[in-house]
């Protein structure tokens, strides 16, 4: 979908960029042409990059009056046919929850980047993973969401593209749960040949040969084709529980369940397609480090040292997708474990679904917390040695 106006896309090759810039470039490559945001440390660089770059691609960047409005822009832009994104940090992420809930219910493709910082309250402007539960449960009500966890500048680029593709494929808001660490770090970024990058666009009723008079806005399958405003489909986006034809009166328990169960299962039934898990050193391991995001960078060093220097048989599992939670995949990977270590930049959050998933496979799951700063390899190694040597 690279049109004439995309001539200003980043060139393939080797670059040296900040994570924030890589995220923005990935989004633009994926086709994002509307960006709305509000300044907040440590996410502001993303908006500033979009402000400089988007006009040359025919896109528009707007700084809105608050984070609620920024997320609101994504809804309208998406319904009008554009791929749209915002980036914020933890306090702004809290503000956006109602809009995200609305996005889930209206099945709106949109990407929200949360560059996490510590909380609660103003917390601090350093790094954190304290919003990972909020990513799944912060929006009110049922429904499900997709949340990705980048660990490098390369990830900030590639996972942002993936976030757009997932949001278009599954008609859902997708979160990129970055941390200050990955947004601010500068690393080598390899941009492949642009034609090799898969870009997915939402299916419209026109794609499926459905005429306006036959169109059911919330029907035709588990992922309803999405009519775009301005194309004669008279589509109404609504977040009250609705029938498949969009009617909101005639409420009954069956309609309620039909509507809400479908949007949850749309994501949860497709974990295998959606989630990505990286696993290394699994064959002989008795213990495992399960990590995600920036912590993976130091956790892998700790695992390597534990194995190579201290002879401790510890494996490494990295959750590249936090939600939907890859319970089945984890159970495939970990048949029997003595100790599992979950280093997080919080006091123990993903530790809980991990424990629940492996409750019959593992004797002990230990949180390895670090607040406000990235673990060093030594911190994680010390815990491994303490429990597993």
């Amino acid at each position: 979908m690279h049109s004439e106006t995309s001539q200003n896309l980043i060139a393939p090759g080797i670059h040296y960029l900040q994570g924030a810039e890589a995220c923005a470039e990935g989004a633009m490559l994926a086709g994002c042409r509307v960006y709305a945001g509000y300044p907040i440390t440590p996410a502001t660089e993303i908006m500033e990059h979009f402000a400089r770059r988007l006009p040359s691609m025919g896109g528009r960047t707007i700084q809105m009056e608050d984070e609620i409005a920024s997320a609101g822009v994504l809804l309208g832009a998406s319904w009008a046919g554009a791929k749209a994104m915002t980036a914020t940090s933890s306090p702004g992420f809290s503000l956006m929850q109602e809009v995200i809930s609305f996005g889930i219910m209206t099945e709106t493709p949109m990407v929200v980047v949360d560059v996490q910082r510590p909380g609660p309250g103003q917390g601090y402007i350093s790094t954190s993973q304290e919003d990972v539960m909020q990513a799944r449960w912060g929006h009110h009500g049922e429904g499900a969401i997709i949340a990705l966890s980048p660990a490098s500048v390369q990830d900030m680029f590639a996972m942002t593209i993936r976030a757009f593709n997932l949001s278009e494929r599954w008609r859902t808001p997708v979160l990129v749960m970055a941390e200050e660490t990955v947004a601010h770090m500068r690393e080598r970024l390899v941009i492949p040949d642009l034609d090799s990058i898969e870009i997915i666009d939402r299916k419209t009723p026109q794609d499926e040969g459905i005429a306006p008079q036959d169109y059911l806005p919330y029907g035709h399958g588990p992922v309803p084709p999405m009519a775009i405003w301005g194309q004669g489909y008279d589509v109404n986006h609504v977040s009250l529980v609705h029938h498949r034809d969009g009617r909101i009166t005639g409420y009954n328990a069956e309609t309620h369940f039909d509507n809400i169960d479908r949007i949850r299962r749309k994501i949860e039934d497709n974990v295998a397609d959606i989630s990505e898990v990286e696993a290394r050193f699994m064959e002989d391991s008795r213990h495992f480090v399960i990590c995600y995001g920036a912590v993976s960078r130091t956790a892998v060093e700790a695992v390597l040292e534990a194995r190579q220097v201290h002879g401790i048989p510890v494996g490494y599992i990295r959750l590249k997708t936090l939600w939907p939670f890859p319970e089945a995949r984890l159970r495939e990977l970990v048949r029997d474990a003595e100790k599992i270590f979950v280093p997080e930049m919080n006091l123990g959050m993903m530790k809980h679904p991990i424990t629940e998933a492996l409750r019959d496979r593992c004797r002990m799951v230990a949180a390895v917390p670090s607040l406000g700063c990235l673990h060093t390899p030594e911190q994680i190694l010390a815990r491994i040695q303490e429990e597993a040597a």
Partner: protein
Amino acid sequence: MNEIGHPMLKYLKTEGPSGPRLPLILCPGCGAGQVLNYTLHAVDRLLAEDNLNKEDVVFISGVGCSSRLTSHYLQFDSGWTIHGRSLAIATGALLANPKLRIIVFTGDGDAAIGGNHFIHACRRNIDVTIICVNNGLYGMTGGQVAPTTDTGEKTATTPFGNVEDPFDLCKLAETAGAAYVARWSTAHPRQTVKTIIKGIRKKGTAFIEILSQCPVHKKTAPVEMFKALRRLTARVKEGAAVPDGRIAVGEFCNRDKPDWISRYQDIIDQENRHKDTECTGSI
């Protein structure tokens, strides 16, 4: 009964595969239904007279009785969204497709919770027509006090009388920068239709407040309230004082100023000047 129905029914979804959608869910005599009627009359005229393309017309609303107008009734693209956030959503839609002709239905309550977005939308002069159905209270939730409720009035949450003063939405819109600001009431049907036509035609933010009756929470018959609206309002010439106890109606402000999209288009053009291909800025 003869099958010829109301002329504006051609713009409404009276029923769908899952069942009937009309009658409107609103209470008997509610002014919001009248505002929908006036708006559809205005749009009907524009579709016939102007180059307005029906596919480009989009209605967006928030939450509240006035926002129910888009709920599942319209044969237009629409969004029945979240309380107070319609203008942010409208902004996004324009950024994606500036050709859309957006009409926002809001109420005094919805506009108040969305006050921040209201102020900034007017300041940016985004090209939308905001039709605000002002009944001086929060109707949908049972008649609570609103920022537009008169001082001293007893409502569900001010059972001893309102200790606050209301603000003037039209003055807010004008000060914030809206290009076109006007107020009428449901008892001014033809004036309202003409003003909505002007508002939609106007490039930039058009804010049109319509004083409206809520018979249920004011415990007054619709006809009494409808007649009273005429008595309570006064059309004044610029500079003239509003007669005591009356509310001014009419056009308050009509200025030419570029909207957000046109201003930003200059930047898009400038950044694309070196390219051969035309960059229309539509996604």
